[in-house]
């Protein structure tokens, strides 16, 4: 399911003296099966853009086409449910959305709203709780008795249980410990790879962009200022710094090595690429290579 923005602008509190520009003239397509990262500094309009992906916000002008549904400022709030099921959205600090008495019921809440029978929804809950790396024993616990990181996983499980075909993630790993971050990012990558889930990820972690995304959108002041592959985006460190963005750690390291005399045909973005590029340039210790 492609999602296409056609000259989309959005104004917060339009028609009041407190109006504020959220998005300005965005035109872009998020292709079915892609992994898109959205980067940009705080307040650049990333979350505003995301909320157009499942019609939580409707453009003030322009059109958003989600699959075969067209969303404009005129679109009524009725019959948006199928769309909400197809585009699963994990909000920033998603643990705030938990409310049920048990973890199982909270995860089953979404599917049940979309008409999945009780028994199937409960089965989904069990399946998802394992998928996000929690023990099955939490299913009967209150979500409020869990740690912050566990609550985040339950919230993510609750969205995955809706079985969306597009997964939208707004800084899903902010505030998690490094292990939790890696687990979650690998889970999303796996779903993308194995179930061909379209993933849209907002993040401040350039490493995650380099490791997982195949397409990058750069936002600034409500505008889309640059799009391209991670390689294209990270090719211009000066421009990135000017836009308060950074480089992946691997690339920073490669640049430091470059100043010490190492040579790279193109700057590596991931750890494995860096290792591969370094290996031929390292002095060989006696006995390690036999050619």
């Amino acid at each position, binding site marked *: 399911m492609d999602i296409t923005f056609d000259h989309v602008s959005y104004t917060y509190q339009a*028609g009041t*003296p*407190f109006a504020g520009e959220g998005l300005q003239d965005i035109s872009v397509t998020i292709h079915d099966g892609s992994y898109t990262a959205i980067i940009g500094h705080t307040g650049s309009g990333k979350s505003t853009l995301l909320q157009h992906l499942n019609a939580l916000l409707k453009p003030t002008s322009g059109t958003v086409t989600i699959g075969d549904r067209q969303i404009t400022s005129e679109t009524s709030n009725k019959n948006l*449910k199928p769309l*909400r099921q197809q585009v699963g959205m994990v909000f920033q600090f998603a643990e*705030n959305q*938990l*409310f049920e008495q048990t973890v199982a019921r909270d995860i089953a809440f979404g599917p049940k*709203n979309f008409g999945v029978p009780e028994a199937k929804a409960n089965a989904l809950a069990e399946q998802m709780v394992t998928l996000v790396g929690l023990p099955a024993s939490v299913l009967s616990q209150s979500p409020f008795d869990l740690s912050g990181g566990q609550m985040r996983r339950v919230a993510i499980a609750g969205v995955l249980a*809706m079985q969306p075909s597009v997964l939208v993630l707004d800084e899903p790993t902010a505030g998690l410990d490094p292990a939790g971050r890696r687990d979650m990012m690998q889970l999303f990558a796996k779903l993308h790879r194995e179930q061909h889930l379209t993933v849209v990820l907002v993040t401040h972690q350039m490493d995650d962009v380099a490791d997982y995304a195949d397409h990058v959108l750069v936002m600034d002041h409500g505008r889309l200022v640059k799009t391209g592959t991670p390689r294209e985006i990270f090719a211009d460190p000066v421009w990135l710094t000017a836009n308060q963005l950074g480089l992946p750690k691997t690339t920073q390291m490669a640049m430091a090595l470059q100043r010490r005399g190492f040579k790279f045909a193109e700057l590596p973005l991931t750890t494995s690429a860096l290792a591969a590029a370094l290996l031929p340039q390292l002095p060989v210790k006696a006995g390690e290579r036999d050619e």
Partner: protein
Amino acid sequence: MNKLIIGRYLPGNSWVHQLDPRTKLLASFYFIAIVFMANTWLSYLVMFAGVMVMIAASRIRIGFFLRGVRPMIWLILFTVGLQIFFTTGGHVYWQWGWLHVTHYGLINGAYIFCRFVLIIFVSTLLTLTTQPLSLADAVESLLRPLRYLHVPVTELALVLQIALRFVPTLMDQTTKIMNAQRARGVDFGTGGLFQQMKAVVPLLIPLFVDSFGIAEDLATAMDARGYRGGDGRSKFRVLAYHSRDWVAGGSMIVLTALLLLTRR
């Protein structure tokens, strides 16, 4: 919710913005009280002139104030309608059963309308030019004499300040949680009464949990910084009357005099 103008603050540096919040609070209450003394066209004209001078001194566009009236318009029209249809006396223009439109009815309706507009304009001016926290300070300062009657004025003021401070935070949080639950298939504001009540649960529980969290953090932060009740505590924002506050008070007296001259 976001369309409401009354209760919002518009940062600025005008003469009215710089007035002491106590002056603004007292003057607003005073103005609202004397609005009810106006009973001739000329006296309403005086009151309107007074409001226009204040609005001009605040350098805020009149559009803001007109917008402030908009959410109240049905209440106003309802009240004006009651006045028009149920006031007796004077020439009868139209009659149907016990409904009648009379000369006095029309005049009363117009007066009521003017009163509403005047009161809304002045309240809007007060909140547009005064930060909520300054208003809370003003309330505390004005209620201070009640301390001698063992009213816990500083504690009440603290409650008021904390409540005001967290209104925008909780509004933001409400929007966020509503969106998160909408994304999970909740329809707010559709379906029967029972369905709508059920839809509120996934909103209210996270809000309560969040509020308790905020309250706990705030209490810890206050404890950590040695808060031991309000008695003897010094203030960061010290309220002081300046010459412009006396000018504002004087203007109210002039307005009262003009009102007394023009009313019957």
